[in-house]
């Protein structure tokens, strides 16, 4: 395991997480959340949790994001915070 890579991805995860809750557009938040999940999945495969990262790649980054996009499409993109 390369700790520099680990640290870099951890930083990116935090950035994506903060981005997802601060961006003033729900579609953007959904996509950033997808990025967050994908980064998380990379992190877990670095730690050797292959099954978990496989699940996160298909569930968290895949289907969850689709659900978010579908819900945002059916409601509104507008948000004040």
């Amino acid at each position, binding site marked *: 395991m390369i700790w520099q890579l680990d640290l870099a991805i951890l930083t990116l995860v935090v950035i994506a997480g903060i981005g997802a809750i601060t961006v003033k557009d*729900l579609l953007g938040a959904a996509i950033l959340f997808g990025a967050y999940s994908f980064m998380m999945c990379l992190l877990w495969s670095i730690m*050797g*949790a292959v099954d*978990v990262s496989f699940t*996160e790649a298909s569930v*968290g980054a895949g289907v*969850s994001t689709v659900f978010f996009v*579908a*819900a945002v499409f059916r409601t509104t993109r507008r*948000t004040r915070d």
Partner: protein
Amino acid sequence: MGDLIQIVVAKYNYWIYITLMMIGLYAMIVKNNLVKKIVGMNIFQTAIILFYVSTGAKRGATIPILEHGHGEHGVGTHVVHAVDYINPLPHVLMLTAIVVAVATLGVALALAIRVYNRYDTLEEDEILAKIREK
């Protein structure tokens, strides 16, 4: 100083997970938009999964799939040592937690859509104002 670096290197994974969890919790409490709260909720849940996966990590070990499991020579001829493989138990638990997270997400989004259809907005204060008007 050396001690501090030691501590940071030994525990930084846990600290990052706590940071993420605080981000999620903060979003759930403070955000006014219902979908934003759901995003926060998912960040919160994923952070906990990160914590569990970190508990399973093991230095110098490989992924928890036995190498000589295939074929006829495999069974019984190789002795498996626990130090060579990462702890599989947290992985199992977190598979469950990921699925629970997506299930909660589905229900939450369904509820948010119902709320939007009724009040035509996703902002909590606007909804409460509309309820008070009636």
